[in-house]
């Protein structure tokens, strides 16, 4: 990999360089400020970077702004960005992920920890190369991504990729920031809708639902991600969790107003349901990922229960709840 490390601390840049040299055939380039990094990336020929390591607190442009700039410039939409920072407040963590960071390492770090994160970033970089290739190929073909695949969505506020969410939740746990909860939102009858959709119309549906959920949560501190299978996972401050029934109603009303041109069973409007809120507190740190799985399972089960009850109502004459 070619790694660009940006930090105003010369010692950190040197340590990073030494550590990475022990890890295989990587090349490290360094910049001591965000502006210097942008300058480097703007040079001809265009610089191919496979991974960024960014400090947050730097004079002038900070690492979060730099991360946002990297994501919005179009050249690095999926390239792994690892924040390497002493900033431990949750607002820095949230802002970094919302700006497009995939991982977050707190200084001072153990050498082994940095090596582990870089190996993860390397795996991610290789996956990203394949995804970008697939995206290019998809643009020219009608091959549909699998229903269970977490589709990459860009330009939706506070929406991060699933890999980043899987790093974010354990980080909250490691920093003892347990005051968050996970809620899953699931597109009802998504398998039936998926069968009827083209590749592009399914992608648009997922993007529209993501945008709608994000918009309805705009007054809250949250991060969300598309997990595949029509399910979105949203991590929100526990004390802020809205009334889920009202929230789902508002999301469904917004979706109806969008008049989505999606082939649904019986031409029913696209609707979502929410699962139960899963608190991070109470999950052991090493099993914190279970909170994501639980939230996902809750939302998907709620969706199938609702459809089953509706079937009973229509076909068996039982009361629907």
């Amino acid at each position, binding site marked *: 990999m070619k790694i660009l490390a940006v930090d105003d601390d010369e*010692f950190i840049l040197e340590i990073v360089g030494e550590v990475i040299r*022990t890890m295989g*055939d990587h090349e490290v380039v360094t910049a001591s400020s965000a502006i210097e990094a942008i300058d480097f990336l703007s040079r001809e020929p265009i610089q191919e970077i496979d991974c960024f390591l960014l400090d947050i607190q730097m004079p002038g442009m900070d690492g979060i702004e730099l991360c946002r700039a990297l994501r919005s410039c179009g050249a690095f939409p999926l390239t792994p960005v690892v924040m390497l920072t002493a900033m431990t407040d949750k607002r820095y963590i949230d802002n970094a992920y919302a700006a497009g960071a995939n991982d977050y390492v707190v200084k*001072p*770090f153990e050498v082994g920890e940095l090596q582990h994160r870089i190996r993860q970033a390397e795996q991610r970089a290789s996956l990203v190369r394949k995804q970008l290739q697939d995206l290019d190929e998809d643009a020219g073909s009608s091959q549909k991504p699998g229903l269970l695949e977490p589709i990459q969505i860009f330009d939706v506020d506070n929406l991060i990729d699933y890999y980043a969410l899987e790093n974010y939740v354990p980080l909250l746990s490691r920093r003892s920031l347990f005051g968050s909860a996970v809620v899953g939102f699931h597109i009802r009858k998504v398998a039936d809708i998926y069968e009827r959709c083209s590749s592009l119309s399914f992608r648009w549906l997922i993007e529209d639902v993501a945008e709608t959920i994000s918009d309805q949560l705009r007054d809250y501190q949250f991060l969300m991600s598309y997990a595949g299978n029509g399910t979105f996972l949203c991590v929100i401050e526990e004390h802020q969790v809205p009334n889920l029934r009202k929230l789902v109603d508002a999301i469904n009303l917004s979706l109806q107003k969008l008049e989505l041109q999606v082939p649904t069973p019986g031409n029913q409007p696209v609707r979502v349901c929410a699962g139960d809120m899963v608190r991070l507190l109470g999950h052991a740190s090493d099993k914190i990922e279970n909170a994501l799985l639980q939230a996902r399972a809750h939302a998907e089960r709620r969706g199938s229960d609702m459809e089953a009850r509706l079937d009973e109502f229509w076909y068996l004459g039982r009361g629907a709840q």
Partner: protein
Amino acid sequence: MTASPAALAGGLDRINQRFLAKLEDQCRVLDQLLEAGQGADTLTSTEALYVLHKIAGVAGTLGHTALGQASRACEQQLQSDIAVTGQPSPAGLAAIAEFRHQAANLLQR
């Protein structure tokens, strides 16, 4: 080309020597602040904060855990002092004195 773990240890050792040499210079900023006490101006306090932030980020990785913790505690206290009055509080000065103590111990070794 991949470097060996021994090369990594050697590399980190060289960085550590330079870190300690610089620490001596950085302590002067904190000594100025201690000398000025609660009358220190915001500029000196802010400069001290910057120095502490950097030391806190690196010291632990180079194995100086106590120094790293002292600089982090000092940084947090001074940050809150600057936000409130722009000058170090008695608690802030005590935290700087503790940091200086840790740094002096390390530099004497």
